[in-house]
């Protein structure tokens, strides 16, 4: 596919027959899709072998708007579905594109286990600090003392520090950007495509309709200006120190970039060691049904 003659770089990646999309004015999810598209172009990923899996929520709707083999699965279970895809066809490049509630609340168990196993997945977690699609309920990432529809008097629970969580669980690539950092985000996604193993990129994004509005934090543009003003790029920062607050500093950057053997390398190594000649590599035989 020649991209030189297509003017808008993102257009070939969209299901244009489904535009305009459902995201609100000032929502940052569409912005992340631009960055994702740019990363696909720059890293020359083979689009035919790219599969995108999402869960439920506003970010989960990305799967329906991208022109790729895409799967809109159940709430919290994009990662195990993606694991099955990858194990059945290791040639696939599998991206999980989902939100903070989907990935860290109901999907939390799967998040940490996939990171532990170092499954070769690229996870893009759009973190708008809220459950947006269902009307603005508290998420494990909602910073205190936000007003949400299920904490009408203000949240009081400590929030997850997602980079810290996934690093501890075993992720090999951990980065955080905001929707203001469009070029850096695209670059991080490209870098994740070069890595083998569990990569996790958190993107802080506005939810102007619910999170920002209920907490009188302005609209999408105000939030983008806040990101611009209060973000500090600190590559390699200890993830324990990158927790978020409602209006405070946002530490962004590439925090973790390390090498650990991925799940399939470990599996292969173990089987060859134990079974020798008798081991039959599944990549030849799993897709054996048609």
């Amino acid at each position, binding site marked *: 596919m020649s991209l030189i003659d297509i003017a808008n770089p993102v257009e070939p990646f969209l*299901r244009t027959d*489904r535009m305009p999309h459902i995201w609100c004015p000032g929502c940052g999810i569409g912005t992340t899709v631009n960055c994702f598209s740019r990363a696909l172009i720059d890293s020359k990923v083979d*689009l*035919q*072998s790219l*599969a995108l*899996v999402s869960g439920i929520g506003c970010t989960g709707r990305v*799967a*329906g708007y991208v*022109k*790729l*083999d*895409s*799967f*809109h*699965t*159940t709430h*919290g*279970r994009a990662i*195990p*579905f*993606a*694991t*099955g*895809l*990858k*194990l*059945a*066809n290791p*040639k*696939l490049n599998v991206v999980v594109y989902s939100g903070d509630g989907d990935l860290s609340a109901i999907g939390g*168990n*799967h998040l940490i*286990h996939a990171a532990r196993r170092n499954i070769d997945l690229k996870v893009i977690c759009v973190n708008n600090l809220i459950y947006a699609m269902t009307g603005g309920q508290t998420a494990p990432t909602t910073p205190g003392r936000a007003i949400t529809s299920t904490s009408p008097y203000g949240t009081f629970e400590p929030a997850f520090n997602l980079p810290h969580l996934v690093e501890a669980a075993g992720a090999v690539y951990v980065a955080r950007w905001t929707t203001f950092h469009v070029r850096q985000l695209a670059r991080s996604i490209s870098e994740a495509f070069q890595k083998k193993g569990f990569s996790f990129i958190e993107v802080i994004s506005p939810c102007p309709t619910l999170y920002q509005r209920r907490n009188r934090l302005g609209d999408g543009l105000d939030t983008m200006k806040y990101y611009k003003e209060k973000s500090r790029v600190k590559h390699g920062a200890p993830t324990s120190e990158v927790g978020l607050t409602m209006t405070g500093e946002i530490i962004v950057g590439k925090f973790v970039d390390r090498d650990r053997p991925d799940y399939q390398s470990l599996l292969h190594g173990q*089987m060859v060691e134990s*079974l020798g000649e*008798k*081991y*039959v*590599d*599944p990549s*030849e*035989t*799993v*897709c*054996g*049904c*048609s």
Partner: protein
Amino acid sequence: MRADPRGVLTGTHFIDGDHACCEGALAAGARFAAGYPITPSTEVVERFAARVPTVGGSFIQMEDELAASITLQGAVWGGAKAFTVTSGPGFSLMMEHIGYAAMTETPCVFVDVQRGGPSTGLPTLPAQADMMQARWGSHGDYEIIALCPNSPQECFDLTIKAFNFAEEFRVPVMFMMDEVVGHMTEKVVIPSADQIEVVPRRHSRKSVDTYEPYATNGDGVPEMAHAGEGYKFHVTGLTHDERGYPNMTPQTQDKLIRRLQSKIHDASDRITLLEEEGLDNADVIVVSYGITSRVAQRAIELARQQGRRVGKLRLITCWPFPEKRIRQLASRTKAFVVPELNLGQMVQEVERFAGGKAKTFAVPHAGGSVHRPEDILRVIVEASR
């Protein structure tokens, strides 16, 4: 299509139902399983984990049944035939994803080796109390197929049938074993691969430009594609149109949900597998399935020794329920006797379709052991009055 010989352990074996089920899956072409340990089903995946690295395939033990039940579906869309195995508590956890498989028309097999419930119940003892759950466990209107083996041999043979139905109808199939059938050891004959018929994936032959993931022609079952083949298709659990795009209107819902129902209903003659014996002139027909059918067999023999005319109807396919056959038989017999290892589940269906033309007698059992033949005989005698 003939079975792939690499997965067929041809020979005469002395193995239990769990082990035979695993061999059936391998013979059917299953090359992916995602599991989570739960008594009394665990041996199925333990054997798969041991066998599949030398056959060629993948096994992963996931962190819970919620994961296992969706990981296998990812593998299906990646090109594999896949299944999972569980018992009551895990089956309950898998319900959302059984619904997802039905809605997205993902061909796959869910094995439930039933044990005493509810809740943690009796992990090592039998029951047949998940039968209604197999049919109705997930939310919404959908259809599944459920098969009930009554021996380790059937655990082999019918698992292949389960995979074949799954592929033919693009539906999740519930393989309803029970703890006794799973743990009983009997002779299992596995034929050579060329004697085993397997149904291949209904893969589309359409070009990338013309393919629509949920368009059907004729039999109501769409053709499938896999990720990585260039089709760039979309799959969602939301109500969708032929393009697979979310289309949340009553009209699309009506069209889709009715098609999901009719693709199974319209083919129920082919799907309904029954074992019948002595039904002509029977005053009483014993309707049973799974391990209970073996006890019922003895009860029927005892009743016949007493000179009673008793027929046997064994449900090999429990869902879709053989309503047509029950309706026919209800006009020709006095009573149905339905022993089950539960407090009355399939008996409700029998009674419903008997339509008052024949009486229906349940032989309930709370689970934990099997009936004694005398328990069933007593009800046959009562039904004969």
